[in-house]
């Protein structure tokens, strides 16, 4: 009787270890598997939600680059600062001269650059969604997306015109546009950037305190570099949103004795 009990206990223990082992394997698989696929397979994310999320992720990536590089994805005329190519909004290569405005339409520049960045990536999102959801019985039809970006007072609106039709089991859903909305205070930061650029063009410098006094939620950092370039970092204290740009105006070279 005693022997039987021991045998039973041993069996129970073994089963417990097997179950535990299986659980560990499942956890490891979940850990190493692409979270995106898990969301799709186990979650309730629709194809449209997937495309929206994908677009939003790319938009955030593009915006981050634009914000740190003075509004260009690949700036030509830039200053290298903390591994960022910070584009000049106002620039002169001469000494003692006021800068020449390089980007008078900062908001438009941002919109155009973000559009350029997003267009191929939205197509990529669409292709990916076809791949993933095709396996689940969805079929897609759409035209080449016509992306439109607009930076508004409190948000950034990305509108992709693609006349998309999603079909599953004969059930069709039509989407003329795909709208992605990103909450952002970029508009205000861009307006302040324009104002600083105007100061630089008129006086050869700007006074950061003035802006911080007028806008208590704004932080303006001005970092003068050895060649006279000024790196401006605007930060919204509430949202921590940052915008960085460069300006080079009224430069005094080291040790030039001539006047």
């Amino acid at each position: 009787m005693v022997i039987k009990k021991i045998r039973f206990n041993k069996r129970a223990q073994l089963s417990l270890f097997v179950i535990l082992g299986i659980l560990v394997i499942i956890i490891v698989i979940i850990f190493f598997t692409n979270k995106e696929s898990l969301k799709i397979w186990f979650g309730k994310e629709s194809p449209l939600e997937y495309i929206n999320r994908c677009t939003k992720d790319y938009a955030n990536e593009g915006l981050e680059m634009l914000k740190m590089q003075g509004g260009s994805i690949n700036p030509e005329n830039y200053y290298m600062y903390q591994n960022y190519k910070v584009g000049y909004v106002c620039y002169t290569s001469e000494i003692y001269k006021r800068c020449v405005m390089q980007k008078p339409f900062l908001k438009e520049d941002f919109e155009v650059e973000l559009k350029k960045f997003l267009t191929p990536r939205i197509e990529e999102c669409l292709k990916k969604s076809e791949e993933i959801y095709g396996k689940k019985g969805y079929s897609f039809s759409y035209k080449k997306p016509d992306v439109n970006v607009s930076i508004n007072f409190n948000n950034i609106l990305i509108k992709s015109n693609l006349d998309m039709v999603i079909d599953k089991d004969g059930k069709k859903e039509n989407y003329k546009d795909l709208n992605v909305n990103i909450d952002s205070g970029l508009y205000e930061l861009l307006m302040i950037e324009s104002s600083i650029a105007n100061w630089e063009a008129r006086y050869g410098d700007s006074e950061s305190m003035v802006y911080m006094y007028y806008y208590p939620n704004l932080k303006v950092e001005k970092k003068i570099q050895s060649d006279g370039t000024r790196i401006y970092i605007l930060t919204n204290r509430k949202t921590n949103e940052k915008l960085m740009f460069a300006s080079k105006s009224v430069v005094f070279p080291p040790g030039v004795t001539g006047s």
Partner: protein
Amino acid sequence: MEEKIKEKKFKKILIFIISIYLIVYSVSAEITWPAFNVCCEKTKNGAWCQNTPEENCDLSINPLTKAPYRKTPASCDATSFCKMGCCVDTSEGLCMENTPQKVCELYAGTWFDDNQCNIQQCKLGCCILGDQASFVTLTRCKKLSSIYGLETNFRKDITSESACIALANAQDKGACVYELDGERTCKFTTRGECLNAKKSANITKEPEFFKDYLCSADELGTNCGPTTETMCVEGKDEVYFKDTCGNPANIYDANRIYSKDPGYWKKVVPKSQSCGFNNKDGNINSKNCGNCNYLQGSLCGKGSASYGDNICKDLNCYNTQNGKNYKNGESWCEYQGEVGNGNDLVGSRHFRHICINGEEIIEPCADYRNEVCYESKIAGTDFTEAACRVNRWKDCIDQFNEKDCLNSDKRDCFWLNGSHYDGSASNVNKNTNTSSNPEKADTSQTENRGILNGGGICLPNYPPGLKFWEGSEAKAICSLGNSRQVIHYELNIFGGKKCKENCEVYSIEWVKKLNRICSSLGDCGIKSNLVGKSTDDGVVVKVNGTVISGIMEKIKESSNK
């Protein structure tokens, strides 16, 4: 008589003339700066409309015009494509100054031939936005009004920003009572906004405006009542009570909640008659009073109060990098070592620190001490203000009297007694230089050159930083500290020599004095750098063309002290 003449001649022959040269980078070099002789439509580094050397021009094909980017052997201002002007963004109402025509047209902007934007389209006026105001152009005002959903109210007769702000503050404010879907409700706003409300909302009855009344006033009979909640209002410093409709009431005062003082919820009480108005600390962190004052270092923000969750947040800075406390808005200078009187260290620069919103922000002044930091206290207060401004060192050496030298309206120099400069390396009229040392204006100056003994010399108060490791500029500046001295010796008949004239320059003190002058001229001479290191090659002492060694160590010791 003849014998006496012979003796004199003999003595003259016996006089050895030993020349001592103290040379500090004695190569006198011509300063060259690249000739900005061509206007490039676009440069190779992507900049638009730059006056630059020809080789920097981008001559590739412009994708828009299908023609190469242009270049003209003239200043950009003289060209048609790169003329500077004002670029107007008609959609945002912004006017961008000093913009090349080409760049403006690239963005489909409207370009005007006035680079400071003194044009009708860019004329500023007062844009009233509810109880706020902005000093902007008419187009910008329209844009802002549309953003905030308000009617455009642009006052072009207001010509200053301060008058504009005053106008916004002087607007009638009060309770705007109206019926929304049959319910009598209220919004605390300006008269103008109230009377325009009908056009913009589903309002069933003409709105009525009650100047200086709060929406919580019982006699108005609205659905808005008092609460013990508080709120921060955009553009205002103070913490306000909030009514049940979400409108701001009077400034938060824990002793005047509705149950204690119903009268406080009827009409607007001015800031000056609210709690803690005379507290010079701006009621920082007060649990009972929300009368914050931004200029005194407090602003409405989240925090624990007796009622509600807003307090007057402290915006001052404590225990800053120099260990001191500063008020919000104060700025001060920080240096990396000794400054002024030519003592700035090699590689050092000046910094401006700012205390704003409780944070210490560091702004470097221009490198190479092209800018210096100045600070002063506002008269009658303990409030410090600092600024980086241009270091005016360039004409110090050409000032030959103390008064001109110390004229702080024109330059940043200091006066050093004991030696003077003969102007030999400057472009100034050399006849004027004797004023610094009239007693030395004799024949000896023809054989002695550069820095001479006696009198006084004008030197940069903040020596400019120099790129002494490249180019010729540093050499040109440092060579102003060169000194060629001739010492006259007399030989006696036994062959011994005795110094007869200009003897004092053959001493370590004289070399030290010259090193002091050199190090004040810029990053010249033997001088410690930011990390306390100094080099040997800043000073060369030669006697009859032979370099004297050993002297450097003594100077280094004294310069490091």
